[in-house]
């Protein structure tokens, strides 16, 4: 069971993540993106971006780094091997582009129990180098209870 006392807990800001062009291309390929804006600098610049644009779910790369700090937190007591993803959302103020230097701050929005299972919702706010909010990633994990 996830410790309900971590509800509201805010985790320290993650170290700066520099968004690389090849990382965006690698991620774009992994999600079957054929969009020129995700691959081709000239196409992205012609569309008004400073560099290639990350696919809409790229924020998960940053969220993942914040989640690792929670999964490593003994107080939260989350068994990663029993985690199933329940839902996910990204609310973007602007797209992530190559060259962005991003940090994130994760807050445990809620911890609910559902029978033997726990449902934990995390809000990860992703900021750029100017400390402006780029995207909020909201993720609910279902932690399955041990089988009796």
């Amino acid at each position, binding site marked *: 069971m996830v410790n309900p006392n971590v509800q509201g807990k805010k985790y320290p800001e993650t170290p700066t993540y520099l968004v690389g062009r090849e990382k965006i291309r690698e991620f774009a390929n992994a999600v079957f993106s054929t969009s020129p804006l995700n691959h081709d600098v000239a196409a992205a610049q012609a569309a008004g971006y400073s560099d290639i*644009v990350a696919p809409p779910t790229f924020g998960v790369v940053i969220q993942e780094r914040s989640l690792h700090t929670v999964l490593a937190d003994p107080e939260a007591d989350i068994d990663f091997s029993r985690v199933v993803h329940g839902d996910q959302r990204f*609310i973007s103020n602007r797209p992530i582009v190559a060259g962005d230097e991003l940090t994130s701050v994760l807050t445990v929005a809620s911890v609910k129990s559902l029978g033997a299972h726990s449902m934990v919702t995390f809000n990860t706010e992703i900021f750029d180098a100017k400390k402006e909010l780029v995207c909020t990633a909201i993720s609910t994990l279902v932690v399955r209870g041990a089988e009796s």
Partner: protein
Amino acid sequence: MNINDLTVGQEIGSDTFSFTRDSLVKYAGASGDFNPIHYRDDFAKSVGLDGVLAHGMLTMGVAVQVAVNWIGDSGKVIDYGVRFTKPVFVPADGKAEVVVTGKIGAIDLESGTVRVDLSAISSEVAVLGKAQAVIKL
């Protein structure tokens, strides 16, 4: 694209995506999610799963491509959320197909946004629920 030319219910596109174990390993590396339930049969079985399953985030990331290909600019997707309703099991020696279809779910003339509702079907079951992408035109 002119928002006034769009109608609610209109289909914007459809595509079929094939997931193999290679797809899952590629996605693990690209995303940083190395949960072994996505590449090791023995591990998946040891935690009570029927087999290796695709990352929900892979299905989510792939499904929105139908909306991105329609609008031509992934930067215009300002809000995208899904529920993971069923796992997509991916066999070691074969593939799992996911059929994604996008339809206009809502039009907001005031904010100039369109909500695209995505369905993702694998082996005749919906693997995403309430998959909605809001696009700023």
